[in-house]
């Protein structure tokens, strides 16, 4: 029974193969590699988003605090990382740092900086942290003044207001913009394929290179990315429905 379905499945693939100018069989045969690529892509994207977010929260608070030293420093950081391409940032870390002998001699080189995966993670994290900081900074600034006053008047301390009133409300208002940042980061993660990593696009490029194909690998990668974006959009729609109920 199992054999029969398999063979009819194969027949079906052969048929599709014959009517489409695409090497479907090659894609199917290498699909496990693509799944692995999805894993790498998601791993890099999700980890950098989580760490970036954790870095962004204190930076956004400090940036909004008008602190005489912290605020301009953070502004500079976000300005540089938002004003330059992620590709160049990644190259700078992956290829650039190897220029310095003292870095190559230190333990960080062997354990972290010589690895493309770590370099991608560091670059992506610093990049998304910069965007997220600005996005949260905007949301914090948009907190209705009256709501902050009400918190002051009821005796909340400075950090109490930030923790209980300002951040919870800023997080909620930042959800739509943050969903864009998540998709942007997923798009950006393709840079990983330029520093040898086998993410979704990396596998696509490998497939094309291996079998001298022009578009099979890229089309498969495009469809996989599309599916991931679709999933992310869905998740955020659910999150928005839950947490933005109070705005509707």
């Amino acid at each position, binding site marked *: 029974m199992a054999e029969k379905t398999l063979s009819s499945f194969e027949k079906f693939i052969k048929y599709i193969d014959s009517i489409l100018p695409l090497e479907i069989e090659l894609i199917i045969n290498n699909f496990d590699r693509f799944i692995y690529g999805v894993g790498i892509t998601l791993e890099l994207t999700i980890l950098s988003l989580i760490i970036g977010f954790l870095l962004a929260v204190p930076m956004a608070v400090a940036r909004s605090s008008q602190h005489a030293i912290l605020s301009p420093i953070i502004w500079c950081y976000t300005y540089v990382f938002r004003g330059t391409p992620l590709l160049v940032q990644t190259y700078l870390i992956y290829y650039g740092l190897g220029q310095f002998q003292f870095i190559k001699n230190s333990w960080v080189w062997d354990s972290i900086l010589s690895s493309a995966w770590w370099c991608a993670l560091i670059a992506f994290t610093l990049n998304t942290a910069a965007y997220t900081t600005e996005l949260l900074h905007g949301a914090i600034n948009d907190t209705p003044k009256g709501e902050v006053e009400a918190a002051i008047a009821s005796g909340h301390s400075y950090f109490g207001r930030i923790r209980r009133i300002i951040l919870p409300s800023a997080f909620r208002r930042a959800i739509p913009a943050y969903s864009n940042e998540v998709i942007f980061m997923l798009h950006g*993660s393709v840079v990983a394929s330029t520093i040898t990593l086998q993410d979704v696009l990396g596998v696509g490029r490998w497939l094309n290179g291996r079998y001298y194909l022009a*578009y099979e690998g890229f089309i498969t990668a495009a469809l996989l990315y599309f599916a991931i974006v679709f999933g992310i959009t869905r998740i955020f729609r659910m999150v928005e429905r839950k947490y933005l109920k109070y705005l509707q």
Partner: protein
Amino acid sequence: MNLIWEYRQQLVDGTLVTIQLALASLIIAILFGLLGAMGKLSSNRIANMMAGIYTTAVRGVPDLVLILLVFYGGQEIINTIGKATDWWKYVEINQFMAGTCTIGVIFGAYYTETFRGAIMAIPKGQIEAGVAVGMNKFLVFRHIIWPQMIRYALPGFSNNWLVQIKTTALVSVIGLQDLVYNAFVAGRSTHLLFIFMFASLVIFLLMTAISDLLLTLLNRKYSKGMVRT
């Protein structure tokens, strides 16, 4: 520092290619953006759907995937069609063309949303007032919608343009000798990759900072007469 000076010509050439690429793709993007916005706002269901598919597809697929697809796949498709129909001889897509067209079409989708929002932000009453004084559709567009659309679209436009400049860096992956590519090559041959990548980072920062500044000034000019809320 001396080595950077030695390689200055490469950096300057690369920067010029990057600027050309950005500007050329901007023109395509604005055209596609206007078309897309018209499609989205049109009462024609097919136009509506096409514009919808266009923006969703672009939002769903990373830029570099599309650039590679167009550069490697596009050439093959065009030549397959050419061979089958005998309409044209062997065509070669160069990196600049592939990059310009792809980035233009991609950002067209983002400008679609910007322009659509801008047109929708124009108070309906003003368009009706135009019609009421006897303007035809063209006059209404030229005298009422267009000038205000620019005003409402500027902030979103600025945002997209800054992203677009940075996106051009990806074209180095298909071998176009832009700023990133030239900096990388120079860095590798001198073993000073950090210095050269850093130089290209600074040049990109200058390009985005200058754009940002100019667009902010323009925005200030155009928002005269707008009530700040």
